[in-house]
């Protein structure tokens, strides 16, 4: 099968580098690193939908934000909540929302799907912004980070940025491994078939709706994981976490990085967050730094016009990486 993931050697080296990073970097960069890893999880979850199933969701922030809000809402005001309780609850909430919304939107196709996903995310935004459910536009604080204590031992203290970073790293490794497994399993192959030729998949007997919905729910759950971690790190949740800028940003990460390749999503997240940091820092643009989105927007327009297949494909070509064939001989021809 075509490489949808990096060669094993590259993966191991990347993980080692990422693990070594906090040992040499200042606290600010460790926190930035954790933020990038969390965004990468978010991007990976969307890539499952966009890159591997062909479902372009413009409302993925709904599940990201919902999980964040759930954590904020069920956390006690001045104590730490239990990580092992709040995480499953938050992810289940995100998955449940994805199930309900997915049931409604997966029945639409093409552009309708794009617009409907955006609309439902906006509905959740309106809900949290206009009502008192989540503290309205003021948001909610999470004063103490969740506690990882289980059976008396505390493997990581989330108040320490370095240990939080390692939690983020472990999470992304788990998510990447899970998605890699899913994509090579029959379910993932079926998703690839649906992306390639949906009507043919139906005529050979696949209940396409069920598969798409399954992908949608899984993507929602994983986005929830990212949202949970983001809320943990930031300590504050407000409606902007569900805003369509957030949905647009993560979609940008996926497309910029190159859809359909897991490492592309990670690369896209990395690039986007770094771009954001660099462009908004006063050192580069001076007083115009607060208008960094102008530079970002222009860059995006230029990239779309100039690079039709995203950064990952461009780097691959520039670097001359080889495509691997799977040992069993089922070779999938790469398509442009």
């Amino acid at each position: 099968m075509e490489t949808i993931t990096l060669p094993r050697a590259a993966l191991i080296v990347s993980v080692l580098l990422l693990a070594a990073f906090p040992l040499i970097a200042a606290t600010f960069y460790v926190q930035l690193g954790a933020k990038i890893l969390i965004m990468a999880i978010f991007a990976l979850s969307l890539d499952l939908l966009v890159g591997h199933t062909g479902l372009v969701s413009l409302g993925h922030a709904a599940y990201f934000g919902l999980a964040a809000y759930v954590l904020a809402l069920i956390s006690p005001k001045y104590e730490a909540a239990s990580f092992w309780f709040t995480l499953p609850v938050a992810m289940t909430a995100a998955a449940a929302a994805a199930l309900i919304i997915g049931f409604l939107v997966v029945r639409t196709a093409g552009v309708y799907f794009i617009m409907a996903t955006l609309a439902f995310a906006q509905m959740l935004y309106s809900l949290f912004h206009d009502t008192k459910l989540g503290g309205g536009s003021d948001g909610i604080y999470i004063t103490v980070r969740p506690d990882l204590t289980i059976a008396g031992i505390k493997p990581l203290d989330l108040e320490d940025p370095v240990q939080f970073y390692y939690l983020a790293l472990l999470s992304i490794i788990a998510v990447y491994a899970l998605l890699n497994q899913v994509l090579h399993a029959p379910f993932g192959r079926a998703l690839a078939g649906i992306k390639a030729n949906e009507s043919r998949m139906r005529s050979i007997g696949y209940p396409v709706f069920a598969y798409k919905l399954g992908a949608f729910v899984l993507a929602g759950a994983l986005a929830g994981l990212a949202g949970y971690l983001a809320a943990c790190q930031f300590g504050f949740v407000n409606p902007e976490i569900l805003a369509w800028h957030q949905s647009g940003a993560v979609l940008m990460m996926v497309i910029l990085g190159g859809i359909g390749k897991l490492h592309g999503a990670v690369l896209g997240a990395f690039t986007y967050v770094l771009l954001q940091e660099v462009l908004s820092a006063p050192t580069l643009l001076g007083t115009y730094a607060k208008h960094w989105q102008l530079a970002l927007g222009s860059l995006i327009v230029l990239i779309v016009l100039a690079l039709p297949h995203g950064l990952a494909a461009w780097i691959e070509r520039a670097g001359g990486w080889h495509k691997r064939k799977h040992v069993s001989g089922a070779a999938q021809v790469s398509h442009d």
Partner: protein
Amino acid sequence: MTEAILQVRRLSKNFGGLAAVDDVSLDVEVGQLHAVIGPNGAGKTTLINMLSGDLSASAGSILFRGTEVARLEPERRSRLGVGRSYQKINIFPGFSALENCRLAAQSREPRPFNWLRSAMSYEAILTNARQALSAVGLANQADTGAATLSHGEQRQLEIAMSLATDPKLLLLDEPLAGMGTEESSHMIELVSGLAQTHAILLVEHDMDAVFRLAQVLTVMVNGKILASGSPEAIRANREVQIAYLGGADDSL
């Protein structure tokens, strides 16, 4: 006489005021090849689309192995045993020929949401896929990208994909379209072999092939059945000759 595996009764399709298919009834039995012929616009493709589920019927019934399928989606009909090949080539061009068939065979796997094993580890599915490729003569092209196969080979792949789903009824929509003479004769041999073990409904324009392969012929004109019967009876039928076979066509 065994009961027909496919029983179509009074099937119709209306588009606004136009009846593309009007009150069509026919039977297909296992081991039989039933060909549907007629001029362009006669409604043949609409008929096949209604049988496979790609198009909904306006009225009528379709009984497949005793089950009413006229309101079922294509995927359910496929799982009941209906296989279909398309007039316009409808494969997965980005995958290898083997992967095309493997996906088709995988559709029969009872636990679709299984994440624990790699797809390639399911030996039974791979075997089915390879068998389907062999049956159509593409065994040595298993690893070739489907997009790089020749037109005739792609048509063979179309049929292999349907075979990989282990169908009882095959709906073949112009499998010979755009083929040269050698490719055509391969395809005719293939279909002839399949006709022994499956029920086949064949829509075709190639009269040579039709008269060689079919045990039953149905002629459609303007959405309605003009005549139906054995090849000899149809050939001798005056109305059919005038409406379709007569005049410019001298391939008889």
